[in-house]
């Protein structure tokens, strides 16, 4: 990972409680440990994408290259 892209910090259960409230999903305290562990695991996986230099590459939804087709029956 390049030096300009620091590894995202793990969330603590307190962070998760606050972020979840922000998302409009209040979590009961007994949920926090499991959700925190899962959220941090997901973040660790997706964080590898920070290594990529995307330059002007658009998201796939806006990109015309690719096999996406409309219903071929229509």
């Amino acid at each position, binding site marked *: 990972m390049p030096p300009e892209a620091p590894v995202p910090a793990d*969330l603590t259960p307190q962070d*998760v409680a606050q*972020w*979840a409230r922000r*998302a*409009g*999903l209040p*979590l009961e305290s007994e*949920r926090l440990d*499991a*959700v925190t562990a*899962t*959220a941090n695991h*997901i*973040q660790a*996986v*997706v*964080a*590898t*994408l*920070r290594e*990529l230099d*995307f330059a002007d*590459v*658009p*998201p*796939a*939804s806006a*990109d015309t*290259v*690719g*096999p*996406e*087709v*409309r*219903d*071929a*029956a229509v």
Partner: protein
Amino acid sequence: MRPYELTLAAAAAAIRAGELSPVELTDSVLARAEAVEGRLHAFVTLRADEARASAARAAHEIAAGRARGPLHGVPMGLKDLIDVKGQPTTASSSVRADHVADADSAVAARLADAGAVLLGKTHTHEFAYGLTTPQTRNAWDAGRVAGGSSGGSAVAVAAGEATFALGTDTGGSIRVPAALNGVVGLKPTYGLVPRDGVTSLSWSLDHVGPVTRTVEDAALVLATLTGHDPRDPADATVPRQGRRPYPEGDLTGLRVGVPRNYYFDRVAPDVESAVRDAIDRLRDLGAELVDVEIPMTRYVQAVQWGLMVPEATSYHERTLRAAPELYAPDVRVLLEAGELLLAGDYLRAQRARTLMRRAWTRMLDAVDVIAAPTVPLTAAPAGQQSVQWADGSVESVSDSYVRLSAPANITGVPALTVPVGQDRAGLPVGMQLIGRPLGERTVLRVGSAYEATRADAGRLAPETGTPAAAESMPPAPPAARHLPGRRS
């Protein structure tokens, strides 16, 4: 041969010849389901009376000279994410306890128009968010996982409880259970088969496709799902009955890409040897084998999760707030954690997907199909959480099952799994054939040519539900060690 043992193509031929009636076929399949459901639990609901009535209508129409095609009067199952008007779409979840579909999904309507007989809905891992389908048992060994999320569809087809079925595939959910149960599964090109009326897991990764006993059967179902008129000479996208523009079984001139990275890494030795033997058979049929380098493999899981996790959470936004306790614990925690991903993570995944699609397009310029294992290991014992590979790494069983399937979901290219034998424990192994966008005909051609080399093509899972002796599989070095009860 009893009717429930017939492939779709064989059943259709027998019906067309007047040797078998849809009523006999449906009765036979229902009796088979009654005999094995107590052990396998492939179906959420079986609607025997409605199926018999539908079969009787088909028989009457065919007798009156109004045959609709090869699916007419053939009994099938639909994964319970697929809407059928007036029936619940439970998604195998308590969240959907009161659901009733108010219209047919596009695929259910097309199958109904083709005269197929709906037996009932098959189990899915809850809302398709998992790779094991814990309610359902593997058709070859009831102590092992069915695979998922279309576990019910694959088990029903493998056990003769349905002549064919439909599944959905977001990260391998058609191909994984098909491979683990020794049947054929096709994930078509993204967008080729309509998803209207199909419960979504992740809109940008979801596909609907057939689970069948043979490649020929998959081609017949695909032709119906895509809505193409088989008589239309302008149809260039799907295979058609009766049209064979190439010598059957001859793969001369076809370039088969054999990955030198990724697809054979961290793969059980028995799986690798079965798939490499199958690739050798493709060469013997005339194909040219070409080494290929799979691009951007380091980012496959990150892109898959970066797309799927927030999309799934978004789909469930309201019910996760209204009734979170109705979700199974494994699904609930994923949906809740998905709320904490940032928009930047999602956009990074979509931008990486653009790069990955472009890189795959360049790679596929050099070959017609890629041949590789479908899953790195055969069906794991129920309850096993993780697997340790020969390099010492530990991986969850679910991550392992997704690993080789996800690239075709991210890039949208068609991918077919075909049975290629069994491991030393007698459990089925699948080979994946991955094609260019809209390259279904080529993928099916290669799968069909391979299948024709096997004496056991289209067979059902062993009667006993326990694995048979491995087919000419030499003793192998110690396989990946299975570690029950651990998570990676």
